[in-house]
């Protein structure tokens, strides 16, 4: 099947205390600890959203990056047909370890639903979907490392089969003190035709 390539409309990074859109740093934080960086970036993005404070670190990193990217897109206020396809290496292990700490000691046993619910990597997709009213396709993949080929093929198939008009794709990884997000929005149009494996890899490695 020969298809003209789709368009990457926008891309975003969040790493090293900096959050950037389409190659330009929008905000940076001088904080050194991740929880403080997240709070700082949240304030700078001016997203008034109380649910943010209940999220785990993976969801916060994914949410802030997605929020910055989607805000720039003049979306409809009702609902938007944007699929969300995310991936990472460490799944929800950062929060899994927190939950395990609450049950490891029989004399200090305090499992909590507020922690346990985040022991699934796809919860961050749920958080983005709630904020932007995305009643759309979603899936969370775990790869050993960023895999442009698999993300590219899956987004293509969702657009070709008309299961979505746009696809928010990317990599959101949190593992102990390490964190990194790279998201990009693919649209069903064929104007730039830059939704290629080479271009995704180029953007990721930049």
């Amino acid at each position: 099947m020969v298809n003209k390539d789709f368009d990457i409309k926008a891309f975003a990074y969040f790493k090293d205390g900096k959050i950037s859109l389409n190659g330009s740093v929008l905000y940076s934080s001088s904080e050194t600890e991740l929880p403080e960086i997240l709070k700082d970036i949240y304030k700078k993005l001016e997203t008034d959203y109380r649910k943010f404070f209940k999220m785990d670190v993976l969801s916060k990193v994914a949410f802030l990056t997605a929020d910055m990217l989607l805000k720039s897109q003049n979306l409809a206020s009702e609902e938007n047909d944007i699929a969300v396809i995310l991936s990472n290496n460490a799944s929800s292990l950062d929060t899994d370890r927190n939950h395990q700490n609450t049950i490891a000691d029989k004399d200090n046993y305090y499992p909590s639903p507020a922690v346990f619910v985040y022991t699934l990597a796809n919860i961050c997709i749920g958080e983005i979907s709630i904020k932007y009213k995305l009643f759309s396709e979603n899936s969370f993949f775990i790869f050993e490392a960023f895999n442009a080929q698999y993300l590219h093929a899956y987004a293509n198939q969702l657009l070709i089969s008309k299961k979505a008009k746009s696809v928010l794709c990317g990599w959101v990884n949190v593992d102990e003190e390490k964190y990194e997000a790279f998201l990009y929005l693919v649209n069903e149009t064929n104007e730039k035709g830059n939704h290629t494996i080479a271009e995704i890899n180029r953007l990721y490695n930049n």
Partner: protein
Amino acid sequence: MNKTYVSHNNIISSLGFNSAAVVEKVASETTGLELVDDKTILPQPFYASVINKSKLNLAFAEISEDQNRYTRLEKMMLLSLADVVKQSKNTISDRTGLIISTTKGNIDVLENNSKFPKSKSYLSELATTVANFFNFKTQPIVVSNACVSGVLAIAIAKRYINEGVFDEVFIVSGDLVTQFILSGFNSFQALSTEMCKPYSDDRTGINIGEVAASILVTKDKNNLSNEACEIAGDSSCNDANHISGPSRTGEGLFRSAKVALKEAGVKASDIDYISAHGTATSFNDEMESIAFERLGMSHIPLNSLKGYFGHTLGASGLLETIVGMYSLNQNKLFTSLGFSVKGTSAPLNIITKNTSTSLNTFLKTASGFGGCNTAVVFKKFNNQ
């Protein structure tokens, strides 16, 4: 577009170590659930379906001499997939994909007394272990999307085949009964202290079970298994409502089923049987009844298989699809075990006794944390 099929399959569970044996137990209304009193997992006794350790090791010895190298979940998954690879007589090539469906993988290695390295808690490491055992040539894909993972994995396999990435995909799914999972669901007050009673008035929550289930997804019409089905339509829609509670209107499930039916080219009333999610929590079962009423599917015979296996998390959607394929092949509707009296506000046609009837099409649905829902329409393959 080429059609894709679900074909050769296996179930490793407390009810047996191959699909036919397990389905025979289901047909005789035998449950795999039992009362477990293991304080290393949960302070109080709980119902679960748990695979017997010595039976697992004995069976595993037939495919590997290396008992100490693999975790309990790896043994279950390798044993399950080995059966499917053998049945399919398939040579694994650079056109063969591998999908692993799991929510928590080897999460038990995080426990203090685990003899395995903590690195085994990474799902990509679990995937590499499975890939290397069978010599897969392509990078494995792990799907970890809460309780819809198992059935979503089938849709994902189909999509990669349609996109031309693979000619066939082996899926292996599995999750364990662990301290991690039981303590978490218990903190949600979602665990039942009795055997679960999906859709019943007196339902009090879920039971957890462990299973490994595997299947071959292929576009090749030749050498399909007897119970093979076409993957006729599939969709996955989010509720965009709440991360741990289902939508009150069943919005995501409603939309998923709508799109899946449309793609399959069938009307809601053409579906012969619904293999639903039915976890036996108050909110989930109620939500499903509302979604099916909105779809005009309240009259279609429906069951939940949780009364046989418990909720097997990342494996449940695949496990229940396999049982559904056998249901179609045997033209038999299986009892929704544990059902007592109607307990949802909208009507449902719960299967209350095993019934022989002509079956050609079924709908498999699942819903999970994060607001995810998946629906897939399967059509019986008749060598047409």
